């Protein structure tokens, strides 16, 4: 059984609890053993580092040191978390910096040695579980569905940090998952752009124009739903969708699925188990289409 140090992130245990429950359901189904990092802190999401970059680094070194101490690979379920973790890991290659950071970890018996390779569940599905196994577990093929991938910035940029060169499958990981589950992946400009969530409280107009534009584009290209590995994107695209529709003056009705929800549906899990009833944009029409 494959075992992971599991960092759920704040939003999966806050405003998007269906991501947390669907992750656990899917992991169990796949025989993945997740050891949750209950004592770990928020990654800071690039917001702590606005004013306190060093503090954010210490918090992330601590999380990675926990994963290292358990000798388990680190799994994130949020594009932002994995991006921030990887950017931090990159900085910790500097030994002097790591020594300085480790002063703050020593009191609780932790030391970060720089060996962690933080990955998203989506990558782990492709890199560890494998396309063939996923394919063999599909009980409810999603052939009727046209799905738009929505990556979240930190799962596509910066490419250097994500190591696309040495892991080319990461480049179109979401399309690959969508296709192996039997659905059709649609291509649209907005799929690798910003959802607008990071500036929702700073500049609501800009934020919702971004969300609305991408939703409208995907909808007009025939998407039945979007799939996102980032719960922050989910919040702006799902929970804010009615407001985004007003801002861009269009009718929008596009369900936004989390990655484990999509996988769970295809593996035959119940929509209720996957939290598909906990969305702002109703998922019923989508579920009817695949007979779930």
């Amino acid at each position, binding site marked *: 059984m494959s075992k992971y140090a599991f960092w759920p992130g704040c939003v999966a245990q806050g405003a998007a609890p269906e991501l947390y429950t669907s992750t656990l359901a899917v992991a169990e189904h796949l025989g993945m053993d997740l050891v949750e990092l209950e004592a770990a802190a928020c990654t800071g999401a690039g917001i702590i580092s*606005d004013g306190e970059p060093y503090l954010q680094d210490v918090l992330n070194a601590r999380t990675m040191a926990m994963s290292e101490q358990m000798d388990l690979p680190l799994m994130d379920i949020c594009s932002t978390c994995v991006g921030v973790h990887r950017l931090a890991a990159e900085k910790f290659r500097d030994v002097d910096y790591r020594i300085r950071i480790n002063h703050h970890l020593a009191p609780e018996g932790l030391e970060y040695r720089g060996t962690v390779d933080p990955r998203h569940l989506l990558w782990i599905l492709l890199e560890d579980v494998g396309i063939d196994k996923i394919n063999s577990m599909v009980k409810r093929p999603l052939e009727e569905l046209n799905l738009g991938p929505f990556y979240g910035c930190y799962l596509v940029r910066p490419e250097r940090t994500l190591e696309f060169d040495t892991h080319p499958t990461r480049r179109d990981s979401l399309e690959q998952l969508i296709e192996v589950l039997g659905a059709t992946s649609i291509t649209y400009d907005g799929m690798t752009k*910003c959802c607008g969530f990071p500036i929702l409280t700073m500049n609501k107009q800009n934020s919702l124009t971004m969300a609305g534009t991408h939703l409208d584009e995907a909808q007009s290209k025939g998407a039945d739903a979007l799939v996102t590995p980032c719960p922050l994107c989910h919040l702006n695209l799902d929970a804010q969708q009615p407001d985004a529709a007003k801002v861009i003056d269009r009718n929008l009705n596009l369900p936004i699925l989390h990655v484990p929800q999509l996988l769970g549906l295809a593996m035959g899990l119940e929509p209720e188990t996957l939290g598909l009833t906990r969305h702002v944009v109703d998922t019923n029409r989508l579920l009817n289409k695949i007979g779930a």
Partner: protein
Amino acid sequence: MAQQELIIQRYNPDTDESYEESFNVDVQPGQTVLDSLNAIKWEQDGTLSFRMSCRHAICGSCAMKVNGQSMLSCQTQVDAAAERGDPITVGPQGNQNVIKDLVVDVEKFLHQFERAETWLEPYEDQEPPEREYRQKVEEFDHWSHASTCIHCGACYSDCTVAAVDENFLGPAALAKAYRFVMDSRDAKREERLQFLSEEQGGIWDCTRCYMCVQACPKDVLPMDAIMELRTLAIEAGHVNNHGVRHHKGFMSGVRKRGRLDEMMLPVQSVGIGRLLTGNLAAHKEMMDYTPGAIRLLKSRKLLTIAQRHGANAEGREQIERIFEEVEAEKHHHDVDAEAFGAEFETAIGGH
């Protein structure tokens, strides 16, 4: 010799017509996208318009979208751009008006540098030095990345904020502003930080999407510069804005529970102080959040505080300790810097 298909986004201003046109070119190993455009212009269609000059990634003229991403066409080889032999799409830069084919009007992009006054403002009370103004090497090393900009516009072209807001200063102008904020020869550091904090379209409007870092052919790291400007602006006391309140509110949630507190964050970003003093704009902003909050509650998304996880008790204790330690360390640095400053002033005779 291999053949490669290029699909070029064209625009004819005389007829106001936009269309895609496909060309096939012979490709030699090492041939660039720009070489291919030249081949088309010289041998197939002389009306194809694009900007170019140096062909060595120095002049910044030939930035355009190749397969949807902004880059210098002279620096991009056909072999690298054509994955699996697919056609290469070539289009004009984004976020600017197209004049003809691949030529855009760069006025809007260049105007942002004027707004941010990205030139050296020397100290007026100092006699000009006999030779050049000097900058310490170790200081320059810290921000030299931001000085290598060639104004090609690739970052602005891909910027997700510029796409929705003409008023955004954009990555290149902000990185250039950072370069002068960091330059010890510049007298306007404080004014710059204030302007960038308060100006609509300044440092707090960036989404941190990394488009500019990815697009930049010179590793200017514009977004990193913007993030450092935020830290410098907070340190300089420019804290009365949504961005800083958001940062502080976020921090306080993490300090208390080890995790982000989405329930409190909108209130904190609007500003509890502003709300308590009856600031009408603040109350209007709060009202704007209400429908969204109700939607979250109705869809049973937002859990009650009792149900919500935070870090476990042991974790919270350690997180609080780390917050305290980092704060103390910072204070220690400030004291050191002040002491050093005083010593330095004494040493140079109180100037």
